[in-house]
């Protein structure tokens, strides 16, 4: 944090005047918020999300798997993020680091706990064979706020997914059917609210991310129900802070949903 103390002071000076370095209001998303579907025909479903300068892809691959012992009649879900060095000069090749693991897991929980996927319908033979859904999240350009972009891209890619053809209990990946995944209209998306000094901001740029005190990622559904939370950052939050941040996140989530 000390490394960026000048930057932090500068950002807080601006926020005291109600402004961000890029001219935005504290609770304003960058523009455009754009979702493109079917950006990879090799995937069973895919999407590319743009929030301002941040670009991120999500792709879905389906496979036939053995169900987990505790859910013998439900499909499997896996969600991972790869912070490839293409997207940010600070990312390195190799096994996923903590940042990538946290990102993948937050998105995973938002999707899983919202029950947006009716996994029971993905069971083929109980205890034997179920559909496995793999969600891969890959930033192309990281100009900040990969959390919100990832959750939005994951949902968009799930919506874009069509099941491949099954033949003798084997997948014919080259033939897609018209059948979508069994999705509810819960539409879980995440909004990350950051605290810096006494200020709250959303959609941090990569510069702002370096100097925030704390962040709260809130995954919520269309009806306002929360489905995952993750507090990050080095400083604490008060319960009043959390109350405020959740309020902001639930309201702002609609702006992301509008892009779907």
């Amino acid at each position, binding site marked *: 944090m000390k490394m960026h103390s000048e930057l932090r002071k500068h950002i807080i000076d601006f926020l005291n005047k109600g402004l961000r370095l890029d001219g935005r209001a504290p609770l304003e998303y960058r523009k455009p918020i754009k979702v493109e579907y079917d950006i990879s025909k*090799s995937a069973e479903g895919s999407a590319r999300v743009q929030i301002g300068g941040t670009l991120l892809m999500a792709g879905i691959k389906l496979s036939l798997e053995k169900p987990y012992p505790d859910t013998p009649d439900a499909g499997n879900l896996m969600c991972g993020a790869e912070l490839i060095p293409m997207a940010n000069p600070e990312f390195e090749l190799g096994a996923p680091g903590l940042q990538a693991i946290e990102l993948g897991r937050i998105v995973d929980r938002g999707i899983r706990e919202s029950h947006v996927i009716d996994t029971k319908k993905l069971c083929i033979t109980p205890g034997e064979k179920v559909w496995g859904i793999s969600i891969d999240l890959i930033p192309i350009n990281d100009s900040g706020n990969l959390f919100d972009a990832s959750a939005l891209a994951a949902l968009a890619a799930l919506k874009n997914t069509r099941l491949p053809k099954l033949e003798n209990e084997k997948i014919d990946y080259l033939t897609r059917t018209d059948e979508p995944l069994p999705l509810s209209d819960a539409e879980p998306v995440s909004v990350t609210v950051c605290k810096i000094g006494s200020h709250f901001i959303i959609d941090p740029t990569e510069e702002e991310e370096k100097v925030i005190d704390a962040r709260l990622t809130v995954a919520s559904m269309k009806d306002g129900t929360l489905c995952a939370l993750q507090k990050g950052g080095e400083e604490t939050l008060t319960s009043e802070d959390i109350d405020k941040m959740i309020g902001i996140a639930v309201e702002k989530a609609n702006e992301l949903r509008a892009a779907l």
Partner: protein
Amino acid sequence: MTYNKRLDGRKLDETRPIEAKVGIIERADGSAIFKIGQTIAYAAVYGPRNLYPKFMQDPQKGILRVNYNMMPFSGHGERVRPGGSRRAKEISMVTEKALLPVIDLSDFPNAVVDVFIELPQTDAGTRCAGICAAAMALADAGIMMKDLVSAVAVGCIDGTVIADLNYDEEAFEGKVADIPVAILPNSGEISLLQMDGEVSQENIKDAIELAKKVTKNIYEIQKQALKDKFKVGE
């Protein structure tokens, strides 16, 4: 039986539709996208920048480092496990060698120029698409270059020489040779040549000649994409 009608109706020397764009990744020093048919390659260049660990540094000149990667959802069949395979490592290496002859890093001792190639969607010809994208990205990053590099996979099916095989042609039941070629368009020199399959000595000559012809057109597309980025006015 001779293969004289292509599966997708293209002429023998016709590539799939090509699109190229330069400067698509803001944070990179140079970047480009190259699409040929259903194959899409992104390339980003970072550097010259410091190279660590130190023992990898070359005190005479900067080094070029290429990483080729297929995204987990970019394959024709099952999910590709992330983390790099032997295939990806080899392609990274030959791509590096394909690009190295055109760039001059003598002004940057101890530094590295990193090239990252990522494929979100593939339908054969990925290493060539990656090389085309990477050459544009290097130019976009302002790296000193004496030429671009243009690449295409030519091939030979049952004695017929064709340009830019797609996946269906690679998988064609017959004698198929897949021949990726990278060419320095101004000198005509070849910086990448691989082949797998079966091909006669005569056919390989014709195939390389065809690659030279086809890459002329690819070169024009790459050049135009670079010019479009640096256009003044508008």
